[in-house]
Each structure stands twice: as C-alpha cells, then as structure tokens.
C-alpha cells in the first residue's frame, strides 16, 4: 500500500509496563496476558489515516531494562515520535520518567513528539499513580498525555494516532525537515517530488529502493 508519509516511533519505558502489549494491541488488535519479554528491540508497523492521508507507522519496541537502554539511545535520533510508557500500578515506573525523558531529549532530535502513557488503566483497584499526577508531569514537560489499557484497548489507537497527528501538524507548520530521514519521517515513494527512478516491479508497500 502506498503512503503519503512514514513516521518512525519508538516505545520506551521501564521493563514490564506493557510496551510490547501496547504495540501488539495497536498492530494486531489483540492482547496477550503473558507476553515474551523483549530482548533488545522488536518491530511493528501499521497504516493509519490522518486527514485523508495514508501514514505508515514504523514502530520500534525496545527492551526496558537498563542494560539495553543504549540501543534505545542510538535510535532516538531516527524517531519522529516516542511513546514514553509507565505503569499506573507501579509508582517506581512513574518515578523513573524523568530519567527516560532526559535520555530521550538528550539523544533525539529536538522536534520529536513525545506522548506520555499511563498504561494498565483497567487495573483501577491497584492504581498507584493518580491520573492528575500523569497530567501534571506531562504539562510540566510539554508532553501529550493519555492513560491507556493494552488489555481493553482503551485509548491505544488514540495514543498512536494523536502522536501521528501532532507530527503531521508539525510537518504542515514546517517545523520538521521532511527531507532529512534522521528526523524519522519519510515521504512516500509516490509522493516524493524527486524520485524518477522507482525500482521496477514494485507493487507498492515497500519504502525501499529510493532512499539515499
């Protein structure tokens, strides 16, 4: 399928907050109560639609443990959006947000859109972090905020799509340099103004070939 834009996302946050489950819910619309722990990084993709434009999201789901954080670092740079996830039932995961954020800000391009996500909102009875606290943190650091449940799918679509909308708006405003792939944004093959040499036999759906 052809697309107008391709956005690259990265999902970060402490181990066990539900990063992989959010991705699975978003890409496959299903929930796996016991998900393999992520070693290094895993990958997902989905097409969404914003203002009639097809946008392909490429998502990097990273391991949460500190030992793997450095790989996360090297890929902030190529990401247009980041989902920073904590678990509303575990305060420590909320307390670590500052570290994650510093890390993200330090290694990403300055325009990267960051969405703060308080996940596991279905576990209201075990809530350890108030919604207001999440909102306050987001306000203070200029992030978008949502509470989600990868289990019930509540707000999962919205989290990914709102992030994309924000990036899209920034593109319209001319904030992003869309010709620099390091910003995590790519123009679709058909939409590229200067791409006369499309690889032959390409039925679309592939973003490869013309990159340089």
């Amino acid at each position, binding site marked *: 399928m052809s697309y107008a834009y391709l956005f690259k996302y990265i999902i970060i946050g402490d*181990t*066990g907050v539900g990063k992989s489950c959010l*991705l*699975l819910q978003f*890409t*496959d619309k299903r929930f*796996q109560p*016991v*998900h*393999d*722990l*992520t*070693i*290094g*990084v*895993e*990958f*997902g*993709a989905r097409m969404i639609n914003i203002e009639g434009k097809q946008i392909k999201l*490429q998502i990097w789901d990273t*391991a949460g*443990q*500190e*030992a*793997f*954080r*450095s*790989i996360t*670092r*090297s890929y902030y740079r190529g990401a247009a959006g980041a989902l920073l996830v904590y678990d509303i039932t575990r305060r420590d995961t909320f307390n670590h947000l500052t570290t994650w954020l510093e890390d993200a800000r330090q290694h990403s391009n300055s325009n990267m859109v960051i969405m703060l996500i308080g996940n596991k909102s279905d576990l209201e009875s075990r809530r350890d972090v108030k919604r207001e606290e999440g909102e306050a943190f987001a306000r203070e650091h200029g992030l978008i905020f949502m509470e989600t449940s990868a289990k019930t799918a509540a707000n999962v679509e919205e989290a990914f799509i709102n992030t994309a909308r924000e990036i899209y708006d920034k593109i319209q405003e001319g904030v992003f340099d869309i010709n620099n792939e390091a910003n995590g944004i790519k123009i679709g093959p058909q939409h590229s103004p200067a791409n006369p040499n499309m*690889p*032959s*036999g*390409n039925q679309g759906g*592939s*973003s*490869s*070939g013309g*990159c*340089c």
Partner: protein
Amino acid sequence: MAEPNPAMFEYDCEAVRVRAKRINPSTGTEEMRKFSVDPNLTSYDILRSILGRAFDISDQFLIFFLSGVDWLPLISDWDLDIAILSAAEPSLLLLLSEVSPKKLAACEPTIISTTPTRVRTSVKASGSRNAGRPPSGAESLKERQPSPILASLRQQMERNLPGLSSRLHKAMTMAEEVIVPKGQQLASLFDVDDGSQTRDPASVSDQDFGKFLNKVGELSQPKELRLAVFQSGIEPPLRKVLWKHLLGVYPNGLTGRQRVDFIKQKCAEYECLKNVWMEMILQGRVTDDLKHITNMVKKDVLRTDRHAAFFAGEGNPNVSIMYNILTTYALNHPSVGYCQGMSDLLSPIMAVMIDEGQAYVSFCALMTRLKSNFMSDGKAMTKKFEHLSQSLLYYDPEFFYYLKQRHADDLLYCYRWLVLEMKREFSFEDAFTVAEVIWASLPPCHANNIHGVQLYEHRFVPKDAKNVVRTPNEGAMANIAILKKRLHQSDSRGFIRNRIKSADMADDEVKATRSPLQKSLSLMSGKYATNHEKEAPDKTHESENKDNSPLPAKKITNLNEFYQLKTSVSESEALKDVAGMDLDDSLGTNEALDAGEMAGLLVKRLPSPIEFGDGNPFLMFVALSCILQHRDAIMEQQLDYQEIAMYFDRLIRRHDVKKSLKIARVMFSEYLNDDWQQKKKQDGSAMKSPSTESPRCDSSTKNC
C-alpha cells in the same frame, strides 16, 4: 538441592535405561515408554512418580521388573537396587499393572525431559505479529527464482568474480546433497509432530555414551562425545547427564561415582548460597539491592516460556524455582548481576535438569561462557555482530549488498539471536537440540579445569552493600551504535588498528588486576592481544578459495581438529584480509553494481576459528543459516529494514531446526576445512592458557 541417595548402592554409571510397558486397562493395548534414570538419584518414589507421569496415570499401579525370566514386584528402594543390578542389558524392563484406573492426574509436567512423548510436541508461536502473513521460510534457496535484476547481477558476479558468489550455493547444495542420505532416518524424526514414540536413531543414547567412558566411568573421550552430539544431538532422556559434560560442569578426570559426589556437593553449596538471601527475606531484612534484583527477576520469570508445558499454568512451581536460581546467580555474580535474557538461557536447562541445584550448577557453567554477552562494555556482542556481518558479506555479497542499500547491514534484528544463542528462534523443544549441538561444537574444557564449575564469583554477603548489584550501566548494547557507525565509516582499518592497540593495553592491565570485575573485563579485552602476541605471523593466505569440495568424512575430522586447535590467526592477520569495509554510502543508490564495486566489498577470509564469533564460530553459522534461508524471499519482496526485522520477528520459535542445523553444519565444516590446521603446526605447544577455552573457562573468576 542435593537429593539424598536413597539406594543401598552407589553406581558408577549415571544413567540406566528403562523400558516400561503398560497394558491400557480400558483398551487392552500395549504402551511403551523409554527413558533413563540416574540410579544414584532415583529412589523408588521418584521412579513411581516418573512412571505415573510418563503414562499419565494416577498413583494406583504396581511395578514389576524383569529378573532373568521372572517378573518380580518392585515395591521398595531395596527392590529397585536389585532391579537395577539384575537388569537385563541394555535396559531395565518394567511392567505396570494398574490397580484401579482413575482420572488422569493433572498435568504438572515436571519431568518433561524423561518423557520422550512430550519432547517433540510442537509449540505454536504465540507472540508473532501479523500472523496472517506467514513467512515462506521453509522454501529452499533452489526452489526460489530470483528476480530478473538479481539474476543478472548474480550472473554478472559469476562472470567477473568466479568462485565468490558460488560459495553460498556450494554450501547450500552440499547441505542438501551430502547430509540428507545420512540423515534420512533423522528426517523422519524431525517430521514427527504427533507425539508418537519415534526417537532419533542417530542421536546419542546412553549406550553410545558408555563408549566414551572408561572402566571407572571417567569420560575418556570427550572429543568423540562432542563430535557425536554435534552430528546428531542427544536422546532426550540422556540430556540431563550429557549437558553437564558439555557445559563443563565437572573437573577433568572424575569417575562416575566422583561425579555424583561432585554434583551433590555443588547442589549443597547452591542451597547455602540460596539460603543467605532467602533468610534475609524471611527475616524482613530486605535491602534495596536485593529488592531491586528480586523485582526484576520476578517480572521476567512470569513471562519466560510460559507456553511450554514445563512452565505453564498458574502457580507452577518451576516458575518459583527459576526465580530462586536467577536471584541466587545475580547476587553471587556482581560483575553481571541480573540481565534480561538470562531467564531464556536458563529455561531449557531447568526443563532438562528438573532438579533445582543441578539446574543452578549447569546454568553457572553456561554463564561462564555467556556472561560476556551481558557485560556493560558490549565488546562480546559487538564482536559477534561484526563477525556475523563479515561472514554474510563473505558468503553472500549479493544479499549483503541488498541489506547495505537498506541500511539493514547492522543486523540489529539479530541481537536476540546472538545474545540467546538462537534459543528463542526455535520452538522450545528444538532449542534443546540447537543448544546441545552448539555446545558440542566447542572444544572440551581444557586440562586446567581442575575445579569444575564455580557457583559464585563473589559470594553474596548480606551486610556488605558494596557487592550486591552492579550499578546501572550502558549495558550490552553499548557498542552497537559504534558498530553501526563503523560499517559506514570510511577508514575501517584505522579503527581496527586502534582496537588492537587498546587490546594490547588491556593486556597489561591484566597483570594489575584488582577486583574480579576489573579482572574479568581486562581479561576479556586482553585475550585477543594475548593470542596476538604469542603467535607467529600467518603467511598461508596466498592461495585462497581452492574450490576442492571436501568430503563429509573429512569434515568431521576437521571439527575434531578444531577441538584440538591450540592456536589462532591473530586478529590483525585475520582482519588484514577484510577488504573494503569502507563501504561508500552513495553506492546505495544503485540497484545493480558493477563487478569492481562488488569486489571492493568482498571479504577474502573470515576470522580464525579461535576468533570467529568471539569464541563460538558455530553460532555464527547457525545464524547465517537462518538468515540465508530467507534471503531470496526477502529480496524478492524487496523488504526494507523494518520489514526485514518484522519478517524475522515473525519467525520467532518457527525456524526449521533440521534444515538450519544441516546448513550450518555444512558451512561450518567447509569453513574448518580451510587451512587453519597449518597454523597449528607453526605454534605447536606455544599456546597455553589462551586456547579456545580461555573465554569459557573464565579464569578471572576462578582459581585456575
């Protein structure tokens, strides 16, 4: 925990083969189960429990054993000793008679390794995304037709660079043609998916194992044992015995009885190590560090291989056992602590060992070699990526170039493969085979292994806050970014030279080691320099690529020779032949390259067996095999970086074990057939400790 020896006798042998027959009272049909038990660790009660589970029947049965021509009742430990002593060779024959058949016992598969019926049950991948797009992984290279552009590129390469592009094809063709005739029965085993009794006739059995032992039960032919396992794996019931040998648990030269004592002593030692922190928890003296580790471990054991019967179900005790083992390991190994991935490495060991203490001991032995994968300096992982990338370029420049064009040549999506030594890429049960074949490909522990496995590098002491956990650090992926950069940078040789220089410096540091951590890190970085310094320059490279096809018989000899290989090409020499890693990014815009450009990319020679894969060359070939089986599919579909990564993610637990190992074995054999042996003569006995074993033996944490 050390199981008390309930039997009257001590046996020199570690495994007794058992064949048990049961007449199904409802259908009247005969059922047969075969397994092995360790006579020194198996009591009457344990045997009953094994049998109950093997036939999936309740406890209401009587056991009879065949003594001469008579069936005698087996109702006590005493009878069990008589049964074993009078067992008709080669098996102890048992007959089960059910008193009153009851409802099947709940499935608590704690003896999966001794129930052959379960072992081949396929496990469907549950975590794969986009399951609607199954990869065409099973298709062979030959069956797929490359796209016209690629075909012409291939033709062009073959015209201009004869011999180079054919390497891959040759290896693949050999994999198909050479191995298959030998492994026809083997093929039938791997196709079995219905839980029937078929076993791999070629895999190593306890009878085979007996041939490698001398009269007192000492493993007198460790290399031959490894060779046999490398070729065909191990019969599931014998894994518990053989894995300990392969992992280097035992010191050299122990008799069967001594090995039993050794394991008992180690298991007792484990109990002590475990009790230290468990008591802290019971007494409510939980330090932050202990809490930190237990929290991390708890989270991960709850999501490790829970699809596998051994770990499945709410409240499965094996999950708690995994928690105990990992916590004990982390606290007693402050240089590495707990890292994600360890639970994956432990789970097959637990499923095979069953016994908690033995699982810990075996895990420590495995981690002695694999600890470096988790080290914060990232050196081991960087090296593995570097070598995988090099070898891909060496065997399949066309595909490498395809990846290069898409910036996918960093192979980051193979991170999990390398860190877990492919464990998660195969089904849970297939991963056992892959693991043992990989372990068997490594040389046996060298003569310095006088202490056997060490269970701690720094004994955990409750009140000493200093050595509890390592500080959070950059982790094992730290240098991956450097690797990525390196593949794209212009002067790779300068980089290599610098690496060698820093390795030399690290070697000096070895002499002035302080803490175990420092020592271990220095040794890791210093080992290359140590090799380098002791070796005569290698001058045997001139005649490359003599395309004389090696015969299978010769290959096996070569692996044996690899075990003995006491020397290596120094890193500098090996890398001297790596031409043109300075790939120009601008090339990436061209769909087809001319031969000159292609030649600039080619690697003329791979690192020596000592260096390759950072001490595990065969792992590189298993990974290569898993990549190359899909290269045509990837190229045909013109997949980009993300799509390639997702393609391989979908193959988690679904790679074809038979085919992957087959191809890997052939490629490895061909690689070993190179002239590495000539270097052996040059150096003779010059090499002492820095043999292939040095990274594994990890003298930094031992007294040896």
